[in-house]
């Protein structure tokens, strides 16, 4: 089994290496003439008033939290889907209850307006 994963590891390193290599090539082949105006962050023609890293609406965090929960749910669905044909009706209903509980949560967030954006 592990022998199958070795090419993946090599592939990961090759693609990381390719990215680094392209960057280095671009860095050395391109000109490098720094200039204080050129290196200032992009704004529409005026100096920035404040730090660019501003605070964001709390609903971005909410979306990220909900994403974690649904991601976990998907992680639970994977082994179930693979084993569905061998675990029989009991296994099928186990997941239906699990999904039902989470659908309740989904309806709750829908009704509370957690999915509204403006």
């Amino acid at each position, binding site marked *: *089994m*592990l*022998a*199958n*994963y*070795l090419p993946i*590891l090599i592939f990961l390193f090759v693609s990381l290496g390719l990215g680094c290599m392209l960057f280095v090539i671009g860095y050395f082949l391109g000109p490098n003439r720094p200039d204080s105006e050129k290196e200032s962050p992009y704004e529409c023609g005026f100096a920035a008033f404040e*730090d660019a*890293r*501003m*605070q*964001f609406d*709390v*609903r*971005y*965090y*909410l979306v*990220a*939290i*909900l*994403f*974690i*929960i649904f*991601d*976990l*749910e998907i*992680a*639970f669905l*994977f*082994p*179930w*889907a*693979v*084993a*569905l044909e*061998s*675990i029989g009706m*009991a*296994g099928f209903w*186990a*997941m239906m*209850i*699990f999904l039902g*509980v*989470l659908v*309740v*949560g*989904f309806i*709750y*967030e829908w009704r*509370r*307006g*957690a999915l*509204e*954006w*403006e």
Partner: protein
Amino acid sequence: MIEQIIFYFFAAILIISASMVITVRNPVHAALFLVLSFFSSAAIWLLLEAEFLAITLVLVYVGAVMVLFLFVVMMLDINLAPLREGFTRYLPVGILVAVLMLLFMALIVSSDSFNLNQAEGIKHAADYSNTAELGLILYTEYLYPFEIAGAILLVAIIAAIALTMRKSKTLKTPKPEQQVAVKREDRVRLVKMESEKRDT
């Protein structure tokens, strides 16, 4: 041979990045080192042939949990100075927790009930599917823990919404479904007007 090299490589990365998490000053760097340590522990799990758990670690922790962490440290703009002030005050509690953790780890590692003394991981054939094996017992033998996990996730959804939802009264939201459903007759009225006679 190759396996040892890979193990020590990722183990070294894991230890280095984990210690960087608690030593670097920039919180974004710390979060990214945590990503790296999750990633290398996934590689080590994979060496133990825990295929499903390893990829799920990347999927859930790296792909979801750490994104939230990064969101928070990037956007909340945390001022670090007041956080540092409390360092000495919380140090005793921190040391206590650390010692307790160490104790527990030693207990688990040295006990016989977890069968950890087996130096060699169980090797499986190339077509062995870790995911399917997990599915076979998770939804039959461990049915109740599984459903409890579902209930905990539900609680998490409700708690997250209850903690973060602050409905702002000033914001007005357009409803896309209503916007799409608008017909010409609702908005435009054709009025027939008699042309007026020009005064001469």
